C-alpha cells in the first residue's frame, strides 16, 4: 500500500525546500484557503455539533447515575479537543479536499498540463504542491479550533436538554473551564497540523503520479483518501504517545 512512501517523503522534502519562496505565492495560497473554507466549513460545523452531542449522550447518563454529572463538561471537551476534533476534521478534509486535490492534479497529469509546466521551466512542485500543502496546514488547525467550540456547544445542548443527563449549562461550562488546559488544545492543534501535511502531500503525490487516463484519476482519488486516512489514524497513536508529556501543562 505504501510502496511509494519514499517518493512521498521526497515530495515532502522538496515541498519544505520550496517554503522560503512561498511568500511570493501568497495569492495562490489565499485562493486555496478560500476554496477549502468554502467546501468544508458547513460540514465541519454539522459534524462537530453532532460529535459533541453524541459524546455527551454516551457518557452523560452513566455519569449522572453515579452522581458525577458535574464532570461531564470536562470529559466531553477533552475528548473533543485532544482526539475527536483533530481526527474527524482530518478525515473530513481528506475526503473533501484531499480527494479534490488528487483529482485536480491527476487530471492535469493525464492531460499533459504538468508536462507543459515543465517545458515552460516551471517547477510543478513549487507551482502546484507548495500552495496546497501550506493552505491545508493553515486551514485544518483553524477548523479544529472551530470544531472544538461547536462541539462543546453540542455537548452542552444535549447535557442540558436530555432528561437522563440534566446537567445545566453553567455546571457544564464551569467544569469545562476547570478541566481543559491550553496544552490540551495545543495538543490537538499540533496533531491536526501534522495530519494536514500528511493529507496535502499524500494527495498531491497521488495526483502527480496518476497514470492511465480518466480511470487512473479515479484510482488516484480513492488511494489519496484511503492512504491519508490510514496514515492519520496510525500517526494519531504515535503523536498521542509523543505528546503525553505535554499533559502537565498550564491552565486557563
Amino acid at each position, binding site marked *: 500500500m505504501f510502496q511509494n512512501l519514499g517518493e512521498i517523503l521526497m515530495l515532502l522534502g522538496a515541498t519544505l525546500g520550496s517554503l522560503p519562496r512561498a511568500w*511570493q505565492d501568497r495569492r495562490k495560497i489565499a485562493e486555496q484557503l478560500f476554496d477549502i473554507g468554502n467546501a468544508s466549513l458547513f460540514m465541519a460545523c454539522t459534524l462537530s455539533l453532532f460529535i459533541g452531542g453524541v459524546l455527551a449522550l454516551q457518557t452523560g447518563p452513566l455519569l449522572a447515575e453515579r452522581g458525577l454529572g458535574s464532570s461531564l463538561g470536562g470529559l466531553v471537551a477533552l475528548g473533543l479537543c485532544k482526539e475527536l476534533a483533530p481526527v474527524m476534521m482530518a478525515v473530513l478534509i481528506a475526503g473533501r479536499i484531499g480527494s479534490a486535490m488528487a483529482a*485536480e492534479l491527476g487530471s*492535469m497529469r493525464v*492531460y*499533459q*498540463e504538468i*508536462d*507543459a*509546466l*515543465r*517545458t*515552460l*521551466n*516551471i517547477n510543478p512542485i513549487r*507551482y502546484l504542491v507548495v500552495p496546497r500543502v501550506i493552505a491545508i496546514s493553515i486551514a485544518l488547525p483553524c477548523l479544529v479550533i472551530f470544531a472544538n467550540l461547536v462541539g462543546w456547544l453540542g455537548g452542552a445542548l444535549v447535557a442540558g436538554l436530555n432528561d437522563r443527563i440534566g446537567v445545566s449549562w453553567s455546571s457544564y461550562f464551569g467544569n469545562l473551564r476547570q478541566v481543559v488546559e491550553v496544552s490540551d488544545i495545543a495538543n490537538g492543534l499540533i496533531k491536526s497540523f501534522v495530519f494536514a501535511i500528511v493529507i496535502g502531500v499524500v494527495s498531491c503525490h497521488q495526483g502527480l503520479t496518476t497514470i492511465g487516463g480518466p480511470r487512473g484519476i479515479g484510482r488516484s482519488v480513492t488511494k489519496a483518501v484511503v492512504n491519508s486516512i490510514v496514515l492519520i489514524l496510525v500517526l494519531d497513536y504515535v503523536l498521542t504517545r509523543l505528546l503525553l508529556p505535554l499533559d502537565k501543562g498550564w491552565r486557563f
Partner: protein
Amino acid sequence: MTSRPPNGIPVSIRSLRKSFGQQPVLKGLEFEIRSGEIFVLMGPSGSGKSVFLRHLIGLESPDSGEIRIGGELATSEGVGDRFRLAMVFQSGGLLNSLSVAENVGLMLSELRLKPPAEIDRIVADRLALVKLGPEVADKYPNELSGGMRKRVAIARALVADPQLILFDEPTSELDPLVALTIGREILNLNRRTGATTVVVTHDRDLAFGIADRIAFLLEGNIIALGSPAEIRAAQHPLIQEFLAADFQTPESAAMG
C-alpha cells in the same frame, strides 16, 4: 535557409534507445537536426514519434545513448536555463484553470521575468501572431475550439522566443483550412525567428509543404532521412505506401 536569423540551436541524437517495460520503442536513433531548419518526423501511429519529442525536451530520459541540445545533454538541469526551448503538445497542454491570457503569459508571470504591464503587451502580441484577437484573451481553454486551443498553445510556446521549438501533431483534429494556416504559421515563424523547428506529424501535405528535411520513423528506427524530394523518391515500400495511401472505393479504383 540563408534568409533566417541565426538564433537556432542544433540537436544531435546518438544511439538513442528507450523501452517501456518489455516494449522497445526507440531502437538506437542516430541523426542530427541542423540549426534553424524545419525538421519533420513522420511515421505511422505508435512508431514512437511523441516519445522521441519528449526526450528532446527532457520529459523522458533515454535508457542509453544521448541527446545534445546546443552541446548540452537534454537531461541536464541547466539546459532549460541556458537555452530557450518550447513544445506544443499534441493536445495543447493548456492549463484548464487559467484563462487564455494567463496561459500564454504563465512563464513570464510565474518566473517573474517581466512586469505585469509588459506581460500583457507580450501576450497580446503573441496572440496576434497566431491570428487570435483580444476577445479570446479572457476565455478559458474549454470555451475554445480545438484549433483555437492549438493556436493558443503555439502562442504560449512563442512567449519564450524559443531557439528550439517542438510541435507534436500541430494539425491533427483541425479542418484542412485551419491546418493550412497553422502550417503557414510554422513556416513564417521559422523564417522570422530562425528557431530550430521539429514537427511530428502524419499529415503529408504539412510535411512536404514546410520541411527542409524529413525523417521517417518506423517501429523505433529511422528508415529514411532526407529532403522532401529524396523522401518522395525513397524506395522503401512502406514509405511509398504511406505517401500514396488514399481512399480507394470500388468506383474510384474502377475509374483508375
